[in-house]
């Protein structure tokens, strides 16, 4: 099989929607608000417009706040996934295993106040107030491809900050080899943690992990927002991990604890099905999932069912130039 590693400039299969265009399109739709918006809301129960538009927040949605951030220059070859699809197509088993369950069941999640504890192999362990942090720290936009292990993908404008810079504040020791993350454990608020059937049989709390060099890589961010506003609960409010060259399930949501450790920490999907989900979970078109090919993916972009495009999956999700060196002596078929 021919293995092609395209240069960064050739990564995009598609064309960018410049930020100005999506902002203006949104404002046009907002402008129509009173008339058309009302019509859309009353018409479609899900509020999803598969023909490329954007949706206003549905009445019951948790309020999202605007964020101050430095916008990213429009990335050359990427079309953004419409906001309504980013917020209505989620895996967050704590709120149910269906793709629309999280949006329906998470709106009551209490995300304010929210504290995040950093502990383990650090000189200065501590706890931060996430909402204070997101206003004090310099936020930037990162328009990233997101590739789900289920072979669909999106392009999402996250807002956040580099995990590495954040961890540096706590002064990691030389013994810190891995970073372990943990999601909120609160069965009262999260029905999937109360009931194995709703929660897909995952052993909660959800945990994830990175190697230290992966965590310190400048592409790895903690995200607190998308599309210029704070995260909705179904996308992992108020703070989540985004590692763009790995399958989406590595991006642990609603994080409450980060622990720096010496040994490779357990990860939730690896515990559930080790033959299907490895620790590294690097996007790799040459290593199939046991039940489907990873060579290509359905891109969830603007448009309806007949506009869905199948496109080739890129090694490391297109970030190979930046991150391939992290794995240069590893057999990625073995360490998947």
């Amino acid at each position, binding site marked *: 099989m021919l293995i092609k590693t395209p240069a960064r400039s050739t990564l995009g299969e598609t064309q960018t929607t410049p930020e100005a265009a999506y902002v203006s399109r949104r404002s046009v739709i907002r402008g129509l608000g009173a008339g058309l918006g009302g019509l859309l809301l009353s*018409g*479609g*129960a*899900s509020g*999803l*417009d*598969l*023909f490329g538009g954007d949706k206003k927040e549905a009445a019951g949605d948790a309020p999202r706040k605007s964020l101050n951030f430095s916008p990213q220059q429009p990335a050359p070859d990427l079309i953004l996934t419409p906001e*309504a*699809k980013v917020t*209505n*197509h989620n895996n967050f088993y704590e709120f149910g*295993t269906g*793709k*629309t369950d999280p949006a329906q069941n998470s709106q009551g999640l209490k995300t304010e106040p929210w504290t995040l504890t950093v502990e383990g192999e650090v000189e200065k362990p501590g706890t931060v107030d996430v909402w204070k942090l997101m206003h004090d720290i310099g936020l930037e936009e990162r328009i990233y491809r997101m590739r789900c292990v*289920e072979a*669909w993908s999106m392009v999402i404008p996250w807002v956040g900050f580099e995990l590495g810079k954040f961890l540096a504040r706590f002064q990691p020791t030389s013994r810190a080899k891995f970073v372990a993350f943990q999601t909120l454990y609160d069965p009262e608020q999260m029905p999937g943690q109360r009931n194995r059937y709703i929660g*897909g*049989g995952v052993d909660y709390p959800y945990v994830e992990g990175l190697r230290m060099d992966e965590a310190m890589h400048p592409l790895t961010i903690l995200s607190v927002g998308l599309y210029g506003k704070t995260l909705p609960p179904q996308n992992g409010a108020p703070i989540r991990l985004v590692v763009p060259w790995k399958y989406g399930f590595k991006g642990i949501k609603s994080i409450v604890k980060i622990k720096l450790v010496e040994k490779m920490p357990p990860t939730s999907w690896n515990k559930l099905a080790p033959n299907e989900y490895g620790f590294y979970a690097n996007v790799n078109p040459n290593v*199939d999932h046991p*039940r*489907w*090919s990873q*060579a*290509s993916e*359905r891109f*969830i972009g603007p448009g*309806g*069912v*007949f506009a*869905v*495009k*199948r496109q080739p999956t890129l090694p490391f999700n297109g970030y190979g130039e930046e991150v391939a060196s992290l794995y240069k002596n590893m057999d990625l078929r073995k360490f998947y």
Partner: protein
Amino acid sequence: MAAISKNAVAGLLQIGVHIGALLPLLWLFYAINAGRLGGDPVVELIHYLGMGTIRLLLLTLLVSPLAKSLRFGQLNRLRRPLGLWCFVWASLHFSAWLALDLGLDWSLIGEELVKRTYILLGFTCWLILLALAITSIPALLRKMGKNWKKLHGLLYVAVLLACWHFWWSVKSGWIEPAIYLVVALLLLLWRKNSVIRWMKSFGRSH
């Protein structure tokens, strides 16, 4: 008198079969246009069509034993429309996978057919339904004689393949496919004499 009314009932049921199989497709057409299929509508569409096929197959399998135990032979007139609708739904399911999921990328399609056993099972099931649909042309039925019955006994195989295909395709949760498989086995058990007779027909010389 009773015969006439039974004919009328069977006729009405036949219309009911057409409406029942067509309406969900019209709903699907509406749902696609109204964006009711969620963020990844392709997968939703494929699952909807696949589940519909399995339900229609089970319904088809129900007809003969029911006609026999109710002494209501005219019910057998439902078999052909039901069978043909099974083929239509299975073909839509299969085409959605070919065109919308895999984007008619034939090398990928070939690779997936060979590599994923559950896809091969589904494909085999579709081939059987194709053969049964073609041979339901009345002229062919007459021409084939006994062989027609032999061929159409493959419906038993198709139902089991469809359930097995469903079982192996799910990511987690085996309860739902198990329910369908148990229903299929019970329906086959109900007509076990016909099934045994069909299997024996292959042993006999022509």
